[in-house]
């Protein structure tokens, strides 16, 4: 029972990591930009939702606030690409890494100044509610996290395979030039991918905040999500989710079963796994080896 309990809460954590990683991989696939601020996008998404729904701020309906937060993050993502990254095309990947790291710092500062530097909890209608099933005590939030992640993944899958925009995004990510020749507005599509990734980040943020409190440094969670993305193999969407789940599971389990005096292992575990995966399966679990053409 104890084990199953751990697994479920681990899965719930893993879903959040997976969703952040998903937003990250979306951008990487489409634009080859590595967004080191994805975790901070998640954090901002959570705070925006909190700003809409918490009683000390606007006090709107929770579900409406989620939708609004998604909208705000989509606009932010779009504007970030349109206003900044589009002017950097042609610069090296490293400069985009630098830029997004710096943007992460700024976002953390902004969130701290607008909301609070102290942890705040998101007011959810299901806070503190539990479901008892066969000796298990499961938080509603944990179940909801898993359900929402599954639904969102399904939605994204349908979006990419069925809708015109989704197919265009795929095309643009596989071969920019060819997509451009086929009349796909590649630049606008890229901004839209950023918007989409912002929406996913908002969902991840709300889910994360529903498990406890959120503070500006929660964005650092993004680093675990990068580990997840790398474990899954950088350019793979399912890989990102699986990587997230692996990390989510390994944390509580290693904490629980670590020998005495080595509880610190749990904090190292996700990164240790990352380094091990990179050593033995460098391209990640779902690797697609790619080489530049000359």
């Amino acid at each position: 029972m104890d084990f199953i309990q751990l697994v479920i809460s681990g899965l719930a954590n893993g879903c959040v990591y997976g969703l952040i990683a998903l937003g990250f991989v979306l951008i990487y696939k489409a634009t080859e930009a590595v967004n080191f601020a994805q975790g901070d996008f998640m954090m901002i998404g959570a705070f925006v939702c909190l700003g809409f729904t918490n009683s000390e701020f606007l006090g709107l309906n929770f579900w409406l606030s989620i939708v609004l937060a998604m909208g705000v993050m989509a606009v932010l993502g779009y504007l970030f690409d349109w206003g900044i990254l589009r002017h950097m095309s042609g610069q090296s990947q490293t400069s985009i890494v630098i830029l997004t790291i710096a943007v992460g710092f700024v976002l953390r500062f902004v969130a701290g100044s607008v909301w609070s530097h102290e942890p705040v909890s998101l007011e959810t209608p299901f806070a503190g509610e539990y479901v008892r099933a066969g000796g298990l005590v499961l938080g509603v939030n944990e179940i909801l996290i898993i359900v929402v992640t599954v639904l969102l993944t399904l939605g994204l899958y349908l979006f990419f395979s069925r809708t015109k925009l989704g197919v265009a995004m795929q095309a643009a990510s596989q071969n920019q030039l060819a997509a451009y020749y086929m009349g796909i507005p590649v630049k606008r599509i890229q901004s839209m991918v950023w918007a989409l990734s912002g929406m996913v980040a908002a969902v991840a943020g709300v889910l994360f905040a529903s498990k406890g409190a959120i503070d500006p440094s929660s964005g650092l969670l993004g680093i675990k999500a990068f580990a997840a993305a790398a474990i899954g193999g950088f350019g793979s969407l399912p890989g990102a989710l699986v990587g997230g789940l692996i990390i989510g599971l390994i944390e509580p389990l290693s904490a629980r079963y670590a020998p005495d005096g080595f509880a610190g292992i749990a904090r190292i575990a996700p990164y240790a796994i990352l380094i091990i995966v990179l050593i033995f399966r460098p391209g990640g679990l779902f690797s697609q080896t790619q080489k530049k053409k000359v």
Partner: protein
Amino acid sequence: MRFVFKTSYDADIKWFKHGAQLFWYILLLAALIALPLIFVWTGNPYLLGEITAVLIFSVSCLGLMLLTGQTGLASLGHAAFMAMGCYANILLLQAGLPWLIAFPLSGLLAGFFGTMIAFPVLRLHGVYLALATLAMSIITGDVIDLTERWTGGVGGMSVPDIDIFGFVINKYANPYAFYYLCLVVVVLCVAAYRNLLRSPSGRSFAAIRDSEVSAQAMGVNLTRTKATSFFLSCTAAGLAGALFGHSATFVTNETFDIVMSITLFLSIVIGGLGFIHGAFLGAIISGLIPVLIANGRTLLSTSMGININIPGLESALFAGIVIAFVLFEPMGLYGRWLKIRTYFELFPFYRKDMFRRQKSYLKTERVQ
């Protein structure tokens, strides 16, 4: 504008292009040697400590510059290698080794272990190295915690004094000697860096940075060359870490944190990627910002009675400067200086797009 007429191959090999350049650098060195005199005169060596800290930081920046600016590989975890150097130095000193052996050895150990861990990742795309080093930097504190037996963990560890043939240097007892020691290390590191730049290694690093494919086609072994660069870079970071330990005199698991790694990385960007000067300018800026903010804060509160105490302002300001540089001056502070200099040298013939880089739509590394 100055014309240098080259009459031998050595004209291109020499450290300094012409006599005037040599003059300015000798002047700079003389100024640095004479600098402590000011503090002897005022009798307050506090600021000298800050300058020494900048010198130590610039050793680390030089190391990272070699890796990121010269070889094009980003490391987001150089504080981890500083930590390796620092703890290796302490342990070797505790084991009874003389400082003159322990100090270089600690650098080499940091280089060796750093390269060992990063080696598998070096075969991959640069993003993976950034991630792997980031992960290393994050777990540094926890690893130090776990290896409490040797490192003192959370409780920390005090750093033994430097002892060179019976001459004991302690940062508090003898700040001037410590300053000169750091200056010597800095000068040696710069000399090594310059030597690398004028020999095949330095050029093969740059080749990898600019085009891996054609570097290979010219016979450069990618993995071995990247590993060499990484090793040298970690060695410099390790040396800086050892000095940092001596300057901090007490280190804990929180001394070398991820913020330090990121600050290092952002510093060299502000300074100007690919230039030795950039490493120093970056170190100066990152050392200066906290001092400036603190002074500005005191000034505001004493003169106008405004008390500003916003947490995170320092790093946000720093980040803001980085964003501005990436967007408007990707060549960094040193690049800006080069442009200004060229403007005056060529006056009035300077063209705005003289330094413009050719834009390509997507510098893809993927198979299309």
